[in-house]
């Protein structure tokens, strides 16, 4: 962004919006917007509480387990569909449906299947994240130049060698993009899961705060999750940059 010819760092936009928030909060126009300063003070207190620690560890655990299954499952499924045409025809439609369906509506069914506990949250995370990873991996595999595959074959690559020495690396930019989007969806998944299960961790905290109109606490927790999602996304973004140099020159 440039103002009067001066380059303004993008963090200024964040500061401006923070200022707007503070002013609206101080004016007490809308009760759901307490001043940002109050939210930040609450955030400081919240982060120090035992409940927050417990919820963070438990949420992180569900998140990591879920993402582990989503990445291994999604990448494998994407490879399988990319290399076996019949599998793509058979599963392609379903993966696309799941990738765009409002999966929140399935959570009550998951609760029936897996109970009101962490398993349901993990399955929710997997369900939210796996399809986009599958689709992006599939796109990556389909994008691999046929002559690169022929090159491998002509030099005697076994199927396994072809898979992990050529196909995996050639599709890596798309796989990482899928994983990044999968992470963002997984943050949604873990919170929606907890909200619907409602008696555990951040979901419980969210439910309590919003039910009792503790808006400062509510926004503090929301900020924590935003920063977490943004952090993860930037981290994967950095990894993507490391393979970007060849993503555009593969054809």
């Amino acid at each position, binding site marked *: 962004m440039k103002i009067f010819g001066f380059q303004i760092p993008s963090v200024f936009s964040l500061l401006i919006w923070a200022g707007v928030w503070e002013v609206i909060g101080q004016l007490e126009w809308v009760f759901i917007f307490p001043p940002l300063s109050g939210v930040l003070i609450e955030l400081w207190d919240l982060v120090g509480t035992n409940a927050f620690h417990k919820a963070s560890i438990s949420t992180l655990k569900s998140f990591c387990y879920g993402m582990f299954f989503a990445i291994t499952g999604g990448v494998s499924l994407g490879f399988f569909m990319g290399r076996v045409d019949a599998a793509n025809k058979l599963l392609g439609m379903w993966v696309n449906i799941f990738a765009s369906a409002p999966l929140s509506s399935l959570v009550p069914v998951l609760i029936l299947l897996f109970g009101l506990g962490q398993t349901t949250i993990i399955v929710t995370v997997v369900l939210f994240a796996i399809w986009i990873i599958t689709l992006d991996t599939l796109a990556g595999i389909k994008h691999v*130049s046929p*002559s*690169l595959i*022929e*090159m*491998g*074959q*002509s*030099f*005697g*690559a076994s199927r396994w*060698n072809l898979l992990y*020495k*050529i196909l995996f*690396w*050639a599709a*890596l930019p798309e796989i990482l993009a899928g994983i990044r989007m999968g992470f963002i969806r997984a943050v949604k998944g873990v919170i929606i899961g907890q909200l619907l299960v409602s008696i555990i961790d951040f979901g419980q905290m969210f439910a309590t705060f919003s039910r009792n109109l503790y808006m400062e606490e509510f926004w503090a927790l929301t900020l924590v999750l935003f920063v977490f999602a943004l952090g993860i996304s930037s981290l994967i973004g950095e990894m993507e940059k490391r*393979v970007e*140099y*060849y993503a555009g*020159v*593969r*054809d």
Partner: protein
Amino acid sequence: MAIAEQNTIPLAAPTFSDNNIVEVKGVSKFYEPDIQALLDINLGFPKGQMTTLLGPSGCGKTTLLKIIAGLLEPTEGDVFVNGQLVTGPGPERAFVFQDFALMPWATVLRNVSFGLELRGMAKDERYEIARRYITNVGLEGFGEKYPHELSGGMRQRVGLARAMAVDADVLMMDEPFSAVDEQTRRQFQEDLLNLLSIEKKTVLFVTHSIEEAVYVSDQIVLLSPRPGRINKTVRPDIDHAASSDEIRRGKNYLDSVEEIWHELKGYLE
């Protein structure tokens, strides 16, 4: 159809001998029942010589090369290399690709040594061989570069070094110079001939450039448009020890170019 029949010239008689390292016998390729890419190809490739498959676009020359490479299966017929039936790719054949087919995530050194890596050779050993060929193709000092840091001509040199490094008897080159500019192309042709005079490989070369075919080849096989059939075999009889200028001004070179052009012109009419 009538025009095509008019231009059909009797098939060249199969010439098989002990001297041929690659023999193609009765090979046809149909993509669908009604799309014939190649029809009844019988052809011998003499050992240690450079044979070029020349013909208009879509005549199946790349298809034939890929069948010999074992990357495609013929619908009918067989290919023999060193007397052995080809059922897939083999270590005695190495392929140079039109679009280079380099791994963009790997350095020049790893790309060149990739064929050896797939054969399970130890890293030090394969890197040593790769370095030698990187020097031989004129890329000394570029081993740690990535393909996107190189020009098109340099990338194809990497492709050539990779094919040379596995020490195959037969080098197969599919329009290797079509993606590089004319001056690079000429330089590359000369370098290729120099390199081959040292390495003594059998080369199967595909091009649609008449001048290139005549300049580099011992034997030129003219293929007719789809379905590809062998129309004529020309041996330009050029002394490759002569300088580039002498070759290009020589009578044999000019006569061969003219003869082939005359032949190919028939397809346009």
